[in-house]
């Protein structure tokens, strides 16, 4: 757990990759990519069918630890728009159970533009709860306090004669991009122009390991 501030709000970056907004008892997940395994299986690449199961286990674990009242999944919650025909029934029921018990917001992502309509919760393009904005993809020129995902940031930290790579949050005074939470989701290095373009001047990353550690841009390698 790592406490920091964005637009004067106190937030917590959790080792799991979830973001906590304690004052609003809100937990934020990004890029769950549920049913990614079965999507590949359909293309005749039989990745293990356990990713949704695994991701749900970890979601429930975070929820149990922080006891929130509201969950925001900020897009690409499902790997594609046709997941409903592939997800096993018991796992579908677990999601329904979650959306019934919590105030659940699905933000639309590029992978799942129609969200999770059949499974409860509310599906919306973006969400504003002053002073923070939640959306899937960071937007240039958006107001201070933007929380987004989409890019699956990871970082490499230089150590004496080797390096350590892991998923991470990336943030500056204006915005934060969350790491992907899904079990089968890889990452993009934060030094890649696609991500760094949103952080003009300086940024820090919150690196996931046995705990969350912060590093400045200067400690990173591409």
């Amino acid at each position, binding site marked *: 757990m790592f406490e920091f501030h964005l637009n004067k709000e106190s937030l917590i970056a959790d080792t799991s990759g979830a973001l906590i907004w304690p004052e609003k008892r809100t937990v934020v997940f990004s890029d769950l990519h549920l049913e990614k395994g079965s999507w590949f299986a359909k293309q005749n690449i039989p990745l293990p069918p356990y990713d949704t199961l695994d991701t749900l286990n970890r979601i429930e674990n975070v929820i149990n630890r922080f006891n929130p009242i509201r969950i925001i999944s900020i897009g690409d919650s499902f790997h594609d728009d046709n997941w409903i025909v592939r997800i096993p029934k018991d796992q579908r029921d677990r999601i329904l159970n979650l959306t019934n018990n919590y105030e659940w917001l699905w933000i639309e992502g590029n992978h799942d533009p129609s969200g999770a309509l059949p499974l409860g919760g509310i599906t919306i393009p973006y969400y504003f709860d002053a002073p923070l904005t939640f959306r899937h993809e960071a937007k240039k020129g958006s107001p201070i306090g933007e929380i987004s995902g989409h890019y699956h940031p990871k970082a490499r*930290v230089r150590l004496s004669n080797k390096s350590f790579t892991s998923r991470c949050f990336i943030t500056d005074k204006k915005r934060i991009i969350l790491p992907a939470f899904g*079990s089968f989701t890889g990452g993009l290095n934060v030094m890649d122009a696609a991500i760094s373009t949103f952080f003009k001047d300086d940024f820090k990353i919150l690196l996931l390991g046995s705990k969350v550690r912060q590093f400045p841009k200067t400690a990173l390698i591409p």
Partner: protein
Amino acid sequence: MSHTFIENWFKKKGWELHDHQREMIQSATPGLSNLLIAPTGGGKTLAGFLPSIIELNAHPSDSLHTLYVSPLKALTVDVARNLLNPLADMKLSITVETRTGDTPQSRRQRQRKSPPNILLTTPESLALLISYPDSHTIFQKLQCIIIDELHALASTKRGDLLSLALTRLNRWSPTARRVGLSATIPAPNEMAAYLSKSKDSDDIKIIKAQSTKPPAIQILVGKSRLPWSGHMGLYAAPDIYEAIQSHKTSLIFVNTRAQAELLFQSLWRINDNNLSIALHHGSLSLDQRRIVENAMVKGSLRAVVATSSLDLGIDWAAVDLVVQVGAPKGASRLLQRIGRSNHRLQEPSKAILVPANRFEVLECQAALNSIYNQNLDGDRLREGGLDVLAQHIQGIACSGPFDKHDLFLEVCNASPYRNLSQADFNSIVDFACDGGYALKTYDRYRRIYLKEDGLYQIANTAIAQRYRMNVGTIVESVTLKVKMRRGRVLGEVEEYFAQGLIPGDSFIFAGRLLQFEGIRETTIEVTPGKGNIPKVPSYMGGRLPLSTNLAEGVRSLLEKPASWRTLALPVQEWLEKQNKLSTLPKCNQLLVEVFKRGKLFYLVAYCFEGRNAHQTLGMLLTRRMERFGIQPLGFVATDYAIAIWSRKQASNINDLFDEDMLGDDLENWMAESTILKRTFKDVAVIAGLIDRRLPGHKKTGRQVTFSSDLIYDVLRKHDPNHILLRATRIDAARGFTDIHRLGKLLRRITTNINIKFLEKVSPLAVPILLEIGKESVRGSGLEALLDDAEESLISEGMGI
């Protein structure tokens, strides 16, 4: 069948048939296979082809008669050339063609319709060739299958793949003979077992070429001070240079690419006479390598510094000296390298061994002894990989519907799979069908499905295409091209090395000092380098561990002071001091030295089981010491010994080395270590779970890729008995971890540990203590390093 035309041609050339060549001709009978064992360059390859040439001369045909399989693409080209010339000379109209990954698509298609009489190919291309629905028609009249460099293939995954393809060929052309060509090897019976169609190898006749004169090998210890540690051997560059000067053409073998680069630089630094010295290793661009090879053939080079990239293949008559710099690691390997000199003349090969440190002097001497006593080492045959089997089953499915039981019986004919259980086979078929997971949710997405008639069939043609894109068992790490800015491509380096570079860094590559400018797509741009301390690309898997056989040799050398007389003086003094101040390791005993240095306690164990086994031992011992409260801080492993340092003194050493560490400790460590993840990736690629990552593939913001590590983690958590995880554990146990060897050590030394408590470091321990600091921290230590890094940065001020 008459072979007088061959005899006549030999006579015309002024040559004579070797005995083994004649014997190969005489013993060529349908149904009977031959294993020919001959040193490099003994006319071995031609001997393999002679019976086919005679048969094709007597009965000309327009179908495929002989299939030749070699481990190297380059070798097929070379062999084609060496066959076509004599054939033209003898005015024979026998067609010879190669078929490898380099063969144009149009020719490959034509070859399937009208094949040549003799087709030269590689195991991978053969696997592809048998995966077409009409494949069997090509092989209908096949009479002979020749496998070259059998010793280099037999105990590898490529050998597994080849053995499976052979069983399929046997179904189509059961009378075809098999011919194995092998360099001198320790256990010919094992090679025969690999080649054979039957369990007891009764169809194999082994033919041995008369041994040539024993090689003249000399151990050279450089004139400057013999180093205590290190593996590069650069100290001896002036002596090596002298040797080059006094010979016509020298082949200088080293053990790693990094060593090749550094030695090449050192030689040029003192190359006052401007001798033409070249560099050859697997990372250089193909063009560069071809230039060197051609210059070598023409005899215009005085020396080539090379890695194992020149171990196999092309013949160079002109080489009159082979130099091995650094320890040979195995006697068979050394002998094969030495065989690359002088092999067309009836003179002995000449070789110089240059040990890079004191222990390597012992190792070189042990290798020399075992060559003269003809006590060679080599890979034992191993059980075939389950991942390779999965790939083969997919290939079979691509060629047409199959019956499961029928295929099981066929596969069991391949020697590496003779002990395959029906249960494992079934699991692999299930995997090939839909992933074979305990959770049955993928029934709808089968790649291969069971039809109503009881046969298994491939679901669609896209699957066959994907199979053909991914065939093969060599999983290469992703590499980036190294290109001069506005200039040519010099070669390739592994991605992880490139990622560690910062613009402005300089490094040595392709024999020159380069400055890193930046990465552009899949190319790293460089300019000529200046000043700076250069980095040297290091490569995975460059260093082989010390062979069991040589390890025994070193142990018995150490035990008998009488045998030291041949060793260099500084080494003799070193061993005598050790005998006085501590003691010498004995053959059936483990010597453990314990001493204090500064504030830390050191434990040095002289196991002589090779680096891989020692690494594993280090991991397990430190875990155990942690539990015993000895507070270990780190360890370092070499081929000869392991050193562990700790805050407290280890007292219960017999318990530490108890064999039961191979139980839970091993299980726990394996589960956490990155070794399994690395192994899983290879297994998953070979088995066809994930695609090869092709060079040029770049991740985008869209993130459609997935990482094998993530799959591994999830699979281990939710389906721990999955067949690919089992295949991974089997591979890891014999690969990086060498658990088998470690187990043998622990059993050998039970109750036979000689513990010496010393006042200070012993002479024998000096080399390994010098290695400390060169090795990096791993495991939980990495997280501790992260803490340090974070703290030091925080104290510098974060700025945000």
